[in-house]
């Protein structure tokens, strides 16, 4: 790969997907794109770039997908799913008691592990959610990734990272060496191809948005723009979950951190009911009632 090949890929990926590669990511390009060139019967990455310049749409799509597909696993990082079970859903159950509906968006749904982890978490809550309308939308830039998510079929390796064995037994069916998540869980997820760089206002508003481990690839201005549009797609009392290495702090004030819930954010306009400091304020209040 020549320096000019690298610059071409860098600029192309930035313009088409927002992926912002620094100048030292040659190894990443090679590890992701050599399989693509091999698959296309080409000797190397330079030839791949030639095809892209020649206008090959199929090669171009494969390149973008290979570069933007990220590793994911069930209940990745654990903590966001604990927040979801212990903070987010209980608060929504209270706030939406009359409407009885929840809309959740996985904005970088990838191969399905995250939306399915949320769906299984909701299933585990059982009776508390009986009669509620639950909508989980999973979007991703890559069509190939969405197809895998829809199928819900995972390798033995994939189901062994993050997924407790009891959940594997309960929610999956074994197909030879592979494992498919059950139809009733699959039916909880709607899939859609979506580029976060483009307008997504047509999706409506959500109670919960998971947008994890995707913004790290964008430059600062793009991040700020996406946060602004995510806040618009959020209910005023909604929630945003970001990846472990991501934050709004120092970038935008449309969201603010949920106190003591790392990785969880709420739209800035939101004030926790009858308290001056948002979130986390319930415990002291109860202590006050108890006579302290």
């Amino acid at each position, binding site marked *: 790969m020549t320096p000019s090949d690298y610059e071409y890929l860098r600029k192309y990926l930035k313009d088409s997907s927002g992926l912002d590669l620094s100048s030292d990511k040659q190894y990443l390009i090679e590890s992701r794109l050599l399989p693509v060139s091999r698959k296309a019967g080409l000797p190397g990455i330079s030839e791949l770039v030639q095809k892209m310049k020649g206008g090959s749409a199929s090669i171009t799509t494969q390149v973008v997908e290979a570069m933007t597909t990220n590793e994911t696993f069930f209940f990745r*990082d*654990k903590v966001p799913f604990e927040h979801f079970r212990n903070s987010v859903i209980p608060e929504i159950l209270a706030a939406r008691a009359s409407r009885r509906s929840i809309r959740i968006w996985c904005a970088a749904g990838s191969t399905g592990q995250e939306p399915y982890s949320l769906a299984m978490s909701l299933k585990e809550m059982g009776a508390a959610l009986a009669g509620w309308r639950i909508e989980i939308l999973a979007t991703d830039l890559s069509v190939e990734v969405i197809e895998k998510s829809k199928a819900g079929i995972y390798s033995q390796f994939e189901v*062994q990272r*993050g997924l*407790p*064995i009891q959940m*594997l*037994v309960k929610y999956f069916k*074994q197909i030879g060496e592979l494992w498919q998540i059950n139809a009733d869980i699959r039916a909880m997820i709607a899939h859609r191809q979506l580029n976060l760089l483009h307008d997504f206002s047509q999706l409506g508003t959500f109670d919960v948005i998971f947008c994890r481990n995707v913004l790290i690839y964008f430059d600062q201005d793009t991040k700020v723009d996406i946060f602004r549009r995510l806040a618009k797609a959020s209910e005023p009392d909604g929630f945003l979950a970001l990846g*472990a290495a991501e934050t709004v702090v120092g970038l935008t004030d449309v969201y603010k951190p949920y106190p003591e819930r790392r990785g969880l954010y709420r739209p800035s306009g939101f004030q926790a009911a009858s308290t001056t400091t948002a979130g986390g304020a319930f415990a002291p209040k109860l202590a006050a009632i108890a006579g302290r």
Partner: protein
Amino acid sequence: MRTCLVVDDSSVVRKVARRILEGLDFQIVEAEDGEKALEICKRELPEAILLDWNMPVMDGYEFLGNLRRMPGGDQPKVVFCTTENGIDHITRALHAGANEYIMKPFDKDIVAAKFQEVGLLQPAPQE
């Protein structure tokens, strides 16, 4: 330092498991079948047991039943680690008191993930 008993009739698997688990700060005791493992447990119960299914003399399933009937035998966290990858085997193991189940082949990430599931390890700090 906490102890993990590695029970497998393959010395190669025991060696691989030892290397992984020592890297996760466990002290390792090895046994090549269920009967030897049971003798070790009678002397001193480990915190964790990584357990193969198919072994000569006494297999892992029979060992687990015996362990869980021992005084204090409900304490060790038992993680099966076997080529028996069918859902019927997994279900039987869970009913017999296994805490987690690893389908071979395994690597360090899987062992670490499963040990986290049963509370033997804290989740790794995020990147």
